[in-house]
Structures are given as C-alpha cells and as structure tokens.
C-alpha cells in the first residue's frame, strides 16, 4: 500500500518497496519437492540441499511454482495470481504476496536479486 505524503507524491511503504524492486526466484532449480492436496489449504515442501521439510500455505505453492519457471517481481506475481482470488481480496493481494515472499526467503526457499 502506498501513502501520499504532504507534497502529493506517492511514497511506497518501505515494507512493500523492498519486495517490489527485486526479482524473486526459487533457490537453484529442481531443489524443491512439493506435495499439496486439493482438500487442504496447507502443503509441504522438501529442500533437497538442506534436507529440511516445511509446512506452508497452499497459496505460497502457487507463488513458488510461478517463480520456479522464471524470476518475477512481486508486482508481476500479483498480476499473475489476480485471477485466482476473489474481487473482495484483490486489494490485500500485494501485501499478502510480499509477506509470503519474505517468509519463503526466511525458510531459504527463495532469493531476491535487486533489479
């Protein structure tokens, strides 16, 4: 979410700004194994290099699958996934994606490269 400062310029929220100005990708190709189920909003991911197994939201899987194919900015990801969510939730999407990307980065599953 951006807010306008007194001078009428758009000032991006620093939280979002970090994620918007970077290209996100999964850590090395074919490193992650994913298991998800239709009737479950949670999924599991195995990292072949660290040997760790993580419990994550199914929606995060969509993001992983997207950036596994080709690195993308948070904005581009939001654009791609916009079709998957209802109109009511559209405005929450950018923040959700940023939060999820940071979470995935903490788990060591994705990296961001500044543009």
């Amino acid at each position, binding site marked *: 979410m951006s807010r306008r400062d007194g001078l009428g310029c758009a000032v991006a929220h620093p939280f979002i700004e970090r994620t918007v100005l970077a290209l996100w990708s999964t850590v090395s190709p074919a490193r992650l*194994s994913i*298991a*998800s*189920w239709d009737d*479950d909003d949670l999924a*599991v991911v195995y990292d*072949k290099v660290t040997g760790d197994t993580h419990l994550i939201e199914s929606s995060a899987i969509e993001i992983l699958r997207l950036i596994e194919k080709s690195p993308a900015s948070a904005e581009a990801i939001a654009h791609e996934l916009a079709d998957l969510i209802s109109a009511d939730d559209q405005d929450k999407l950018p923040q959700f994606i940023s939060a999820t990307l940071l979470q995935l980065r903490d788990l060591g599953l994705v990296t961001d490269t500044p543009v």
Partner: protein
Amino acid sequence: MKISEVPLAELARLLRCGDLLLRLTPFVARVASDVPSLAQDIALMYADFDICPPNVFADFHVQVWRDSGVRRWIKPQARFSFDGQPSFTGLPVAQAFAMLEWGLNWCVAAHSHQYLVIHAAVIEKNGKAVVLPAPPGSGKSTLCAGLVMKGWRLLSDELALYELQSGLIYGMARPISLKNQSIDIIKRLAPDAVMTAPVPDTTKGTIALLRPSVSSVMRVKEPVQATWIVLPNYVHGSPPILAPHSRARTFMLLAEQSFNYDTQGQNGFDAVTALVDRTQCYQFTYSSLDDAQRVFDNLLQGQV
C-alpha cells in the same frame, strides 16, 4: 521352538549365558541378563514367540545386568547395555523388563534405516489397517490396547516399520506398554488380559506390559497397507468425534514422529507423501473405549 516350550530354569540359564536368541520378526535379538525376574517376564510376555537355533546372526545384542558393588544389595539396580556398552542410567531391578523393552525399541529405531520407523500404533481388522501416530500422552497405547482386546490384530504399539519401496507397514506384535489408570481400564475391559505385575515409581508412573494376542503374534509376518491415519486425542468426558484432519498437518506429524525421517532424505519425503495420499486422515477425540470400539467398527464398515 516357542518360549512357552522352554522350561523356566532353562530360560534363566540361557539368559545368564547370553544365549537366548529371541525372534522379533523381522529381527533377532540376543538377550543376556542376570536378573531372575526377567526370565519370568519374558516367559510370560513372549510365550508365543520363537527362539532361534544357536549361532544365527543376531541383529542386536542386548543385556540387562545388575549393578555390582553396594548397588547389588541395597536398592538393587540394573542397567541396559547394547553390545556391551551400558546406558547411562541404572534403574531399580523391578523395572528390568520395561528397561529391556525400551532398550529394544531404541535398537530398532536407531539402526533400521531399511524402514521409515514411525512412532505409531498399527492395528488391522478384515484386511484394513489404521496407523495411530501420536506424541506421548495422547492415549495411543490405551486406545491400541482397547481395540486389540476387542479383536483388532496388533502390529505395533510403538514402532511402525514402513517399507519405503513397497509402502507396506510391518510390526513386531510386541507387548503393549500401559501406565497408571490405563492398567485398570484395560483390566476391566478384558479381565482375561495377561499383564506383568504393575511396576510403580518409574519415570512415567506405574507401568505394566500387556501380552499381545496369540493371533497377532502368529500373523506377525503379514504386513499391511494403511487405509486410515487416525490421530488419537484423549479428552476427559468428551463424546467420540472423528474429524477429517489436514493431510499436510498429518504429514508433518508423521515426519516428526519418525525416528529416522531425516536420514531417509528425499525418499522419506516421497514415502510419507505416498502414505498420506492413499489414506484418509482423521483426528479422533474420545474419552471412552466403548465409544472408540464403535467408531472404529463403523470406520471398517464404511460408515463414518
């Protein structure tokens, strides 16, 4: 030859010499002990198990030796050893059989990476099997014992041996460990149940071991394909509730409750995924074994 066919004196002699070769399918354990009561407990609890001929390969050499010196006479203690290497704590001699059981569990869990070893009970009836993984304190053993006393086959109470390639689960049909109130509950439920005398003051309270049914032991070589994974959740006074459980959460619980999930690497991930894929996953909240028996029979008949 079965343990029940060996005279007690001979059993005690074999134990003292370290020549008792107990077949705990799929393993063989060579057991040595100088604790007299241990021979009696083994005779009772492992009556239907086989003894192997001498000089066969034993997977595990285990010993329960009495501590020497002052501890031999004053508050006598015994200690579990694995192939001559003692465990760190001695325990009162009265707990010798429980110590043997725990020690054997450790041997299997720590060294058998041909299986994914899951801390779970596994039972079977009419060709359908239920896996009950649960952290300590969830009532798993009581539930398992209750169902086994009412006709379910026991594969395991503690260690489910999941063969990664085939997806089949093996058990050893070994005695079930009960504690505190569970002991009386099971005695009331099945007055004919054969148990060791309760041993008080263990780290887990009073414990007793329950002998598995003869049919369970006879069929120990038959593995199962799991149909259901049920997480037991004992809540005092609760009506029986069988609720569908997130497969992803069930996955994580199985991984956490496996002794060697990490060692199995990618194959472990794939195996647990396959297990969770092909089963129905539930959480079962209950307070009465009668309720549990009904619910599980309904499950069997497809009425959930």
